[in-house]
């Protein structure tokens, strides 16, 4: 196994005096899907916010692609290839679905304001390339039929899919998915399952946070977070057989 793409070493965090994460250590190897489960309030979202840069951790190290991330801003982490989705999908409401996906091309384009104002060749070329790329991804994620609608009009399921399409159009190395199946109907979950596997087959590394045990089967390795501590790690079968996990998580 090669060096992990993302490695958490003894990450700890507290809000005020309340400890939410203690000495969390986990690796996300390149090209794999890693799952993170845990009951509400176990610290999953905080851990996610720490990895993506929305919250700065108190102790420990987060090493991504060989670089310590502590002082890197959200944007720097994004440019380094890390991109996330949100527990409550955050789409650009007053923009069309196609435009939403075009925004995802931000990192693979670079023309600036003055070029835009004067409509210089590079700005025009990039705008065209962004549109083509976005159209391709709308097609890939079955969003073509709604491409020219405002994102505001999408169903909960379509919003999740749009967030993922928008995240991956910019060619990230690590996709962080926060509860991607919540609010989806069974058909949509199947679709999501297929999308995640397809993205992974194409070489994308994924860290998946979810309640959904069925969806978790896409992950080769799963970590269980319980009151800010990782209490078990392994394949989904091992996790489900672990007595401590059954006690803590499944309540039996």
């Amino acid at each position: 196994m090669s060096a992990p793409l993302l490695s958490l070493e003894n990450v700890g965090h507290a809000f005020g005096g309340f400890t939410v994460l203690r000495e969390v250590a986990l690796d996300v190897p390149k090209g794999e899907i890693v799952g993170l489960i845990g009951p509400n309030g176990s610290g999953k979202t905080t851990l996610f916010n720490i990895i993506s840069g929305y919250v700065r951790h108190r102790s420990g190290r987060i090493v991504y692609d060989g670089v310590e991330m502590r002082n890197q801003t959200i944007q720097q982490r994004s440019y380094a290839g890390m991109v996330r989705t949100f527990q409550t999908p955050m789409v650009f409401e007053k923009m069309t679905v196609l435009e939403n996906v075009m925004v995802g091309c931000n990192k693979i384009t670079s023309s600036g304001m003055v070029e835009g104002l004067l409509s210089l060749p590079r700005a025009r070329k990039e705008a065209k390339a962004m549109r083509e790329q976005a159209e391709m991804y709308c097609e890939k994620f079955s969003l073509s039929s709604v491409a020219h609608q405002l994102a505001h009009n999408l169903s909960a399921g379509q919003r999740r899919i749009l967030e993922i399409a928008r995240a991956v159009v910019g060619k990230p190395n690590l996709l962080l998915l926060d509860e991607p199946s919540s609010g989806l109907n069974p058909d949509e979950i199947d679709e999501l399952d297929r999308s995640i596997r397809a993205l992974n087959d194409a070489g994308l590394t994924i860290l998946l946070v979810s309640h959904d045990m069925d969806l978790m089967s896409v992950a080769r390795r799963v970590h269980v977070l319980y009151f800010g501590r990782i209490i078990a790690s392994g394949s989904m079968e091992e996790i489900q057989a672990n007595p401590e996990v059954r006690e803590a998580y499944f309540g039996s």
Partner: protein
Amino acid sequence: MATRSIVILVIIAAIALAVPPFLPRSVVDLLVFSCIYSIAGLGVGLLLGQCGIANLGQSVFYALGAYATAYMTVTLGVGAAWGFLTGVILSGLIALVIGWPVLRLTGHFLALATLALGIVANALFYEWDWLTHGSLGFGGIPKLNIFGLVIDTPLRFYYLAGAVLALCLLASANLIGSRTGLMLRAMRDAPEAAKSLGINAQWLRTRIFILSAIFGSIAGSLFAHYGSFVNVQSFGIEKAIAFLIIPVLGGATSLPGVVIGALFTTLVPEMLTRFGDLHQVLFGLTLMATVVLMPSGLMGGLASLSRYMTARGRA
């Protein structure tokens, strides 16, 4: 659809070019002000419609442009181009220095900060009368002379200001359709998600603030040349509010809306003057009625009307 927009645009341009020579001088005068205010309002409109920022400080940059022109052409006696250039550079720099820290704020706090900027700057314009000549003002600002053609009638000035406005509108339309325009709207709709896609919100907002200030300054320089006189009363808070009303009234996300908003704020008060002292109250009421009845501005109102007509036509 695109062809229809082009046809409408051509018709409007033809009217804007062909009709004013037959209008009375006083109306052409109002049209000149509509053009000038449209340019300043366009800057505010870009901030409001594309970034969701309410700017109550545009009068500052309008004043900077006007004073730069007055100082360069009267005190130093150099060509008009230097006035425009100095105003644009000064406004851009000040917008950068003020925008960088202030644009960290959001919502009402940011609107209040820009209001404070307007108030402080106005007080400074009063105090620094060695530079601004305070309330006495600067007189004798020369008429513009473009390759030998002296812009000395309202009609000539109208064509000049209209051309400048058209260029500013064209540049803004380009910007909105470009990568930068997309990122702006993304940031406006969901700033947290935009960050995750690598968008640097603060720097992007600062750049649009600078652009807005530059539009304000160009408008101010034009104003100084047109009236050939500027004094501090022209740059009060009422002016800043007027520049914000223009895009709000017209429809903040719409570029033509800015022009319509500017026409409204210059023509309607004039039409109401026949009612004597009551005209300001009437203007206030008209304004309120418009905003209440057409929350997405006059352009939004027109769009709903045209949808309604099409629907009725089909039925």
